[in-house]
């Protein structure tokens, strides 16, 4: 099928926004003849296009007993398609200097493509083959499976990965979120070509795709491109996973592992992205533990006490659950103190909220930093895809800073009291930590 021959009926309308600090982002909403919707920022000064696709569902669609199928399938998309075997596909990609990246996430499969204007059609045709007609040849499957298994074995001896896996299993149990999307040695070893084909049919579906582009392409050109690229994908037949509640208890779980520095992850329930209090929580976390040196956790754990190189916390709203998470690493004989300081900060913020000065400072940072994100075709395409995944509309770009400004001291105080729960803060420590009196023990 060659959709290019269809009459071109692209609907495009443009919303123009002026960001503070005078960035102007024009988001065009494109609806294609085949019914796909895409967001576009046209920017012709550099002759290439950045295209971002997201397929909702992701590795959480893995069927029982088939953990790792989506991940392995996604890794195989560039390992042969149509008439091209693995090597042929790689040579063709190199010949066009196109860049394709395929990623499996818990909630979505991501495809990032960059291609030159001068050979756009050929590059998109090649990308199409990998999405529509991947071969999943047995030799490629076995070769890539060996790479995935090597990664699984490495994770089993990596303190960071052990900490994440232990926390997820504690909180989510048998839900797909409870295990790493790579799967286990057993589950991946048992995957067949049929499992991979099934994961492809289930995971890459035309009714669950989100599309964003930025760069040297018009709305009409993008419309044609999308219909050619995606029209032959199947519709979804598999339901998305169930939502799952996060219930944690206070305490420390130690995973004994011989290494000089303990790694700790800590967390409790979080807030959904569409929760009315999400912005207040986001501002609150900027003050408590997001990245910068000014955050309370960084000040207390690193700047004042020198207990770590890095400590941070973050809201993690996923499609079917929401967490509030953080991370720190300290020498085995200092990790208990670091965790105690974090606990105190958690409780202090829940009880007393933040100061007006802290709130003002966080708002100035967040509103000032926002327009700086839109600084290239690649970042813009990713932001547009992320906004659609979050269910936002294009005018969010102009409204967002006002929503940050609208957060009051009282909002933060209320959300801190509601959300931060020292009685639910679970800490998983991997290493040979000293000084945890009543810790549970888990095996890696």
């Amino acid at each position, binding site marked *: 099928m060659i959709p290019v021959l269809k009459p071109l009926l692209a609907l495009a309308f443009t919303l123009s926004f002026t960001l503070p600090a005078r960035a102007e982002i024009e988001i065009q909403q494109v609806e294609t003849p085949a019914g796909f919707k895409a967001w576009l920022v046209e920017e012709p000064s550099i002759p290439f296009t950045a295209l971002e696709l997201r397929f909702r569902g992701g590795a959480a669609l893995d069927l029982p007993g088939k953990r790792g199928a989506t991940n392995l399938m996604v890794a195989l998309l560039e390992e042969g398609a149509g008439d091209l075997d693995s090597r*042929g596909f790689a040579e063709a990609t190199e*010949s066009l200097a196109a860049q394709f990246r395929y990623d499996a996430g818990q909630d979505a499969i991501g495809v990032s493509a960059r291609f030159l204007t001068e050979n756009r059609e050929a590059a998109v045709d090649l990308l199409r083959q990998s999405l529509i007609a991947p071969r999943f040849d047995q030799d490629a499957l076995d070769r890539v499976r060996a790479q995935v298994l090597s990664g699984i074995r*490495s994770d089993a001896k990596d303190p960071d990965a052990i900490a994440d896996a232990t926390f997820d299993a504690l909180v989510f149990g048998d839900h797909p979120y409870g295990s790493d999307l790579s799967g286990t040695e057993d589950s991946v070893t048992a995957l067949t070509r049929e499992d991979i084909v099934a994961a492809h049919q289930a995971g890459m579906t035309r009714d669950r795709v989100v599309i964003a582009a930025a760069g040297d392409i018009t709305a009409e050109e993008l419309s044609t491109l999308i219909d050619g690229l995606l029209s032959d994908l199947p519709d979804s037949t598999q339901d998305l996973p169930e939502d799952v509640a996060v219930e944690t208890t206070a305490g420390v779980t130690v995973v004994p592992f011989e290494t000089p520095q303990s790694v700790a992850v800590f967390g409790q329930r979080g807030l959904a992205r569409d929760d009315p209090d999400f912005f207040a929580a986001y501002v609150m976390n900027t003050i408590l533990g997001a990245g910068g040196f000014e955050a309370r956790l960084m000040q207390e754990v690193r700047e004042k006490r020198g207990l770590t190189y890095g400590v941070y916390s973050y809201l993690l709203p996923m499609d079917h659950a929401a967490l509030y998470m953080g991370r720190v690493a300290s020498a085995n004989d200092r990790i208990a103190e670091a965790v105690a300081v974090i606990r105190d900060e958690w409780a202090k913020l829940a009880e007393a909220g933040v100061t007006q000065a802290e709130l003002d400072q966080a708002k100035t940072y967040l509103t000032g930093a926002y327009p700086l994100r839109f600084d290239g075709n690649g970042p813009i395409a990713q932001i547009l895809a992320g906004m659609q995944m979050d269910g936002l509309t294009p005018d969010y770009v102009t409204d967002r800073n006002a929503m940050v400004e609208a957060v009051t001291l009282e909002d933060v105080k209320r959300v801190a009291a509601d959300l931060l729960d020292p009685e639910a803060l679970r800490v998983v420590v991997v290493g040979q930590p000293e000084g945890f009196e009543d810790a549970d023990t888990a095996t890696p």
Partner: protein
Amino acid sequence: MRSLAAVIALAAFGAGSAAAQEVEEKVTTFALDNGMEVVVVEDHRAPVVVHMVWYKAGSADETAGSSGVAHFLEHLLFKGTDTLEPGEFSRVVAENGGTDNAFTSLDQTAYHQRVAADRLGLMMQMEADRMVNLQLTEADILTERDVIIEERNMRVENDPGALMREQMTAALYLNHRYGVPVIGWPEEMSTLGLDDALAYYERFYAPNNAILIVAGDVTADEVRDLAEQHYGPLPANPDLPAERMRPQEPPQLAERRLVMTDPRVAQPYVMRRYLAPEREPGAQEQAAALTLLAEVLGGGQTSVLNRALQFDQQKAIYVSAFYDGTAYDDGSFGFAVVPAPGVTLAEAEAALDAELAEFMTEGVDPAQLDRIKFQLRAQRIYAQDDVSDIAQRYGNALTSGLTVADVQAWPDALQAVTGEDITAAARAVLDRRRSVTGWLTAEAPTKEVSQ
């Protein structure tokens, strides 16, 4: 579905097409009277600037016994000056919606902020201030020393692969300071004091040893005015050595081999590194050939080593070749091979060497070379999208002994490399006498070592 003929035609189109340098980087360079060099990279698509100050001083410029002091000082530069309180620098950046950080490497130390373009003057004012007015207390020193020790724990001590790479680097250099880790040896880090940090600061932090790079939504004239206002008044350091003092490598006559055993190793691998020449000002040909050699041998699925070891012989699950020619003194060319299940490290290493030997006689596949060169030209287009990458490229080169002219000549130097140049470079550099081979394993491979 596309026919094979179409693919061949498409490949020919790709290789023959002259994409590339239609889009030129808009770069302006000049110097202030006090010797500070300035590079401006214009990109007016978004109202953002990246402001960087790079010092031509890194860990390889430290005095013996104080390893890690360059990096330690980099941390301490956030501690305050005559007019800024500890932490105030980063707080002001954040209050202006910006982000800031710094890094230390073998040949350079750099401080950078990313902010709205209209805040550039403020960034310069603060960066100029801490170039000369640093104020440190003993308490700052002790707390921050704990932080860098935890940083070493995180980056190195908790990672057996990082520990092996550190041991290999120490073995690769018989005399040069590149053999000492940037973060420092643990025993020396724990004794670093205020005197060590201040001695390094006073020796190297001065406008005549610094490069200012501003990239983004700004014009060269605006940068010149602001730079003259903020950096212009700073005095040059008259005692700055005319040349960087670097002990050079003696002739390397014997290959070195090491086995690193650590129970935390899940996936054994073998790594080889050869001493290799770096890009020389005005003479980048050999470095260009080595850059392409790394691509030909290990760059992606179609590379020589991947085809042979991963696809044909199935002895490896991962192979790479690496070379970074941007350094002040000799760098290294290297390989890593992760063996397939059931393949020993000895077998993996033997397969690597057999393939390298065959490459020396077979030479370079012209079609592969064409694909690589086309990708390098396309990379120039993609690179325009990220102005901080361009800034990084200039900063790295100019603190590694290269000039702006060298940076701008580099793409053409890469395009000029022939297949013969590549094999000649391989013959010159891939000499085991000037190499280190490391095996990383969970258990001591006694049988393999005795082979």
